[in-house]
């Protein structure tokens, strides 16, 4: 059993979740994920690692409440326990001195791109961060990013913070901000990663995405997380989760992610477990 240190909603529907997992912290790296179960009947849920504290032996993730299993997570209080917390899993994000790197985060990915930005900065890169959300009240961790970036650029759908619109405005934003990145790394929802990859391709900007398919074991055993990259089937859990965004078959990936959409919310309706408090 693994003790929950903190679980709080940081913006509507997104939770910052810190668990004592001292066996994970010595080997965790940016880009890794962990797998947890909220309780004995819950699914195995993969969550990208957003931060960790080696001294305290704790790991922090950001998750969005979507279906039954994340609804269970959203009701955990500090001091309670989860039965499974395994990791780190997946290959780490490649960290090297690339020059100038643009880190793009959205949704839960604002959390998981943070250790990437931090490590890139430590490796001597010039790091810019672009955070995207529907509205200003859905952005978080700007202070943490300011500490590891030259500049934090905000993009909101309704224009309440930074640029109005979507990440598809990226080429224009890069020109206005006079940023000429050697590499773009995106952590966020599938749609954001796909759109970013689409607009960076004509610019010839190397773009790395951190894929988030359905998973069960997370160790290469089941193959449900498979996706097509450069025409070849890959398992996101062991071959990724980072891939070149210009090589991913996005259409197939989006369809596969929807496989269990009806079932994800079914237990919510049946079990009577309402939402979080």
């Amino acid at each position, binding site marked *: 059993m693994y003790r929950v240190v903190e679980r709080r909603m940081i913006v509507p529907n997104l939770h910052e979740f810190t668990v004592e997992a001292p*066996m*994970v912290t*010595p*080997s965790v790296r940016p880009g890794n994920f962990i797998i947890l*179960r909220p309780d004995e*009947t*819950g*699914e*195995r849920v993969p969550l990208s690692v957003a931060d960790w504290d080696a001294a305290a032996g704790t790991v922090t993730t950001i998750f969005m409440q979507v279906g*039954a*299993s994340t609804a269970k997570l959203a009701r955990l209080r500090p001091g309670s326990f989860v*039965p*499974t*917390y*395994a*990791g*780190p*899993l997946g290959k780490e994000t490649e960290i090297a001195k690339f020059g100038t790197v643009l880190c793009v985060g959205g949704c839960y990915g604002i959390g998981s791109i943070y250790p990437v930005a931090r490590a890139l900065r430590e490796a001597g890169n010039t790091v810019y961060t672009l955070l995207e959300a529907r509205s200003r009240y859905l952005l978080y961790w700007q202070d943490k990013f300011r500490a590891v970036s030259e500049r934090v650029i905000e993009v909101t759908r309704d224009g309440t913070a930074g640029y109005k619109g979507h990440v598809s405005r990226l080429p224009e934003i890069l020109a206005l901000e006079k940023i000429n990145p050697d590499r773009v790394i995106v952590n966020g929802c599938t749609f954001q990663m796909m759109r970013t990859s689409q607009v960076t391709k004509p610019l010839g900007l190397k773009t790395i995405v951190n894929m988030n398919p359905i998973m*069960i*074991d997370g*160790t*290469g*055993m*089941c*193959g*449900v997380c*498979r*996706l*097509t990259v450069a025409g070849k*089937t890959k398992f996101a859990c*062991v071959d990724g989760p980072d891939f070149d965004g210009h090589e991913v078959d996005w259409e*197939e990936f989006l*369809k*596969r992610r*929807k*496989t*269990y959409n009806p*079932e*994800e919310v*079914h*237990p919510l309706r*049946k*079990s009577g477990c309402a939402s979080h408090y």
Partner: protein
Amino acid sequence: MSKKIIPKKIPMPKQEPFERIKNFEEVALGFTPELARQEAARCLSCKTPFCVAGCPVAIDIPGFIKDILAEDFGRGVRRIKETNALPAVCGRVCPQEDQCEKVCVLGKKNEPVAIGRLERFLADWEAASGTIEKPALAPANGKKVAIVGSGPAGITVANDLALLGYGVTIFEALHDAGGVLTYGIPEFRLPKAIVRREVNYVQSLGVNLHLDYIVGKTRTVDSLLQEFDGIFIGAGAGLPWFMEIPGENLCGVYSANEYLTRCNLMKGFRFPAYNTPLKCASRAMVFGGGNVAMDSARTALRLGADEVHIVYRRSRTELPARIEEVENAEEEGVIFDFLTLPVRLIGDEAGWLTEIECLRMELGEPDDSGRRRPVAIKGSEFRMKADAVVCAIGNSPNPLIPMTTPGLTIGKKGNIVANEEDGRTSRERVWAGGDVVTGAATVISAMGAGRKAAKSIHEFLSR
């Protein structure tokens, strides 16, 4: 002295097919003491017992059969446990027809003695009696051994070394112990309560068990070697193969590992009480002809599929599955499409599987495996409607340990190279056995490899 030979095995009571396809309860119900005694009486008590040589862990088979005849069941159990830590599992899932029962002298003209059923009877008798006897443990010798994976190979090594006084720690990647016995083999063939019982028994010998611990990720083999005197890798064959035909990434196409893990480990058959979903297919096609294919097909039936097919490119005689499981599948109404090769999977606009395209095959000359090679008949393409495909065509060893352990020699198929006789690898103090070495094989062969490795570890560490 001659005795009257009963030509056929005493049948073991089973759930009726029409009943059992509606539940996940165990199909075979086991012998009563009277039936066990009748079956035991069929044994010829050969002076040279070939059956013992046919068993990968050399159980004293005539010995325990005599104990059953004498109705000294406790002694029979003790005799099996001298060499086999998992009798309730082996009695259920061993391919006896290829091992002990294959060489049974009685089997030359009649059916062999039902050794597996008798082994299972004794193990279940002990569990029902409520008192599980433990053999004497050697005093602790202060040496520590790490075991990677809690499947049949790992459990066997843990058992053997714990008895010899070693401090044993098992590291299991998943949240429940048992390896393929837990995530792969379905409840109706091997109830998870039995696996739990066997794991509890090994823990009762003082073996530590760390769940959620992925060796190769959480911690490397090299890091473990700093703390432990020796390491046994029994991480299994966890990387599923697909057919590599068009359409395999359509929704509704599963590896057998995914399908069975959803059902067995995650208890998807009890969705939504358990939250991991498993779709109920209407027409499920299972590719392959081994035990895993039979398990997948019978799982699909129990989940409520209208029609389940086994699509196999060779003929019935070449099926690698246990005969008993093939018969069970046939009784339950699984349709066998022999000499059929899937070549393409077809889906709709939303990315869901709708049909499979196959070719008819005929058998040609024998290939390297000695089985007749299936050859496609030109122009024989045909289609079948399908909303689920389960690929049960095999697995390679999991890559996480090979990827993260420098100096460990890896074979062509990603397997860890280890000596057959003692399980030693290219790395000092590292042994390996079971499917991670051989590729997907049987529970008992993994246990046999574990037994040899345990002996070698003991010899090395007591030098």
